[in-house]
């Protein structure tokens, strides 16, 4: 197994107070490695999205640590956390969250613009990432003119544009038909995953389990088991 990408230790997260207090994640520990595609699977309300948010520096845990590149990300300041998300993590949201009023290439260029690259340079680089996902010819179209699968690929291009070490997919197949969903994950596995990158996917779509290296099953905020994928 390659080097460690993420190390989570005893992560706890609750919502609400007093009698309304609910534990979404209860003392979860796990590790994810570079070159690995790790699935977090479980029913709705099992805590997988909360866990993913804590790993990606979006949601502060009540207790526990998340170590990425030898640093506990929750010891960082809010600005450092924003930099961490920009430089180390790439997000592919369930609903993609592409800006409908921008062109496809402008959407892909957003992380580069946030990294303070010049506009023209951002667009040039964004075109390269669109080429990787096979949508160069769609660069000047608004995302609404693209199919669901194409929008998903634009979101992937945007996520990899900042060359992150960790890629996070939230229910990547939820808005796609089975065939397109499988094609997307297959594409990600073959073209996006590499030995310097770790991909974490939250899903409950068993049709794409065959692409996972490991599948971590969550229930009631706890890890109930870890299986090898590809079966």
């Amino acid at each position, binding site marked *: 197994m390659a080097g460690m990408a993420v190390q989570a230790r005893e992560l706890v997260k609750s919502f609400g107070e007093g009698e309304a207090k609910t534990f979404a994640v209860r003392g979860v520990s796990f590790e994810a490695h570079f070159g690995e595609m790790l699935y977090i699977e479980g029913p709705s309300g099992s805590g997988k999205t909360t866990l993913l948010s804590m790993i990606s520096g979006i949601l502060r845990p009540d207790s526990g640590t998340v170590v990425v590149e030898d640093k506990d990300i929750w010891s960082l300041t809010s600005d450092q956390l924003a*930099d961490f998300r920009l430089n180390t993590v790439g*997000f592919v949201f*369930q609903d993609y969250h592409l800006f409908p009023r921008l062109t496809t290439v402008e959407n892909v260029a957003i992380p580069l613009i946030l990294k303070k690259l010049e506009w023209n340079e951002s667009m040039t680089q964004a075109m390269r990432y669109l080429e990787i996902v096979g949508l160069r010819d769609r660069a000047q179209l608004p995302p609404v003119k693209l199919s669901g699968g194409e929008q998903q690929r634009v979101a992937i291009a945007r996520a990899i544009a900042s060359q992150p070490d960790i890629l996070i997919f939230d229910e990547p197949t939820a808005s796609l038909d089975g065939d397109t969903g499988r094609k997307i994950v297959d594409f990600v596995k073959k073209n996006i995953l590499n030995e310097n990158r770790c991909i974490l996917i939250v899903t409950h779509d068993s049709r794409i389990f065959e692409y996972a290296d490991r599948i971590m099953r969550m229930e009631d905020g706890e890890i109930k088991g870890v299986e090898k994928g590809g079966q």
Partner: protein
Amino acid sequence: MKGILKIAYKLLVNDKGKFAALLIGITFATFLMNMVTSMFAGILLKSSSTVINIGAKIWVMDPAVNTVQNSIPMPDYILDAVRSINGVRFAVPLYSGAALVRLRNGVYQSVSILGLDDASLFGRPELMQGHIEDIYSDNAFIVVKDAEFPKLGNPKIGTGFEVNDHTGVIVGIARVTTGGLFGVPTLYTTYSRAVQYLPSTRYTISYILVEPKSTGDVQHIKEQVKSMGYVALTKDEFMQKIANFYKYQTGVGTNILLMTAISFIVGLSISGQTFYTFILENLEKFGALKAIGARGYELVYMILFQTAFTSFIGYGLGIGLSTLLITIAKLRLPSYAAIITYRNLGMAFIMVLVIAGISSYIGVRKVIRIEPFDIFRG
């Protein structure tokens, strides 16, 4: 920062419907505010037209006078007393009153009559036709060729009329800087003829026009006049007094204030509501930007840029539109009162900034509060 502002610009202008609605809101508000305040500025300017046209540096009058038209006559000895004040280069009487003239065709027409000091003719208008010395000839009057001139039947030199059973003859046609407010023609004659022709009270001097030897003498002159029970106002002070009368004692000012406030509220409602909808529609995207790594201040800059951009464009369009309308109106109606002043432009700009500020606040508050985690939760 330039790149993120370019993104903000594209998000704004590519949403054509909302951008248009925002522009319409700001433009409409600016247009209304500028029209209303310009009309008021024009009315105030015209209400001081005699003060501007006569051009005296100091006006002596009864303290109860509020406007040029409502003068309270002063006794002749006040003129002598003013002339004897140290620092007065000269002081002359002015008659200001209204009369009915009977035109050749039998039509009666109200006019405003100004009687100039016989010796100096101080405050005389610039003549377009005729010679100023003709004002000393029998029954002589000079008519002002302004927007009200046609009401006298477009008189020519030699045209006769009757005023208070006296014959009057036009001996000159003049122009003045500013037309009057009340829509009546203006006639100039000598002070002595004015008091001779027009029914008057025991006292006949409407105003005493004073030229000080130097600006340093103005304060002393004012104090001396005050000790006589009268008031001496500089040209600007008199204009301000007239303006204050119309603003605060006639209800015109209150109505203008209300109209301006309504314009502001309408603009704020349209722009604020549209911008709020715009932000709500893009809220998840802003949340996604936050998740991706945008810092809070970058999102705030985006929103401030969007509101500032819309406001400046809308302000420019509103001012342009009102200027165009006023220009067209003035071409069609020479007596149209509206005048655009720097103060009005500044006030409308401040109001637009307030609209932009409130709209920004609504947007910023929403965007600052959105948590990236909400994006994951859906």
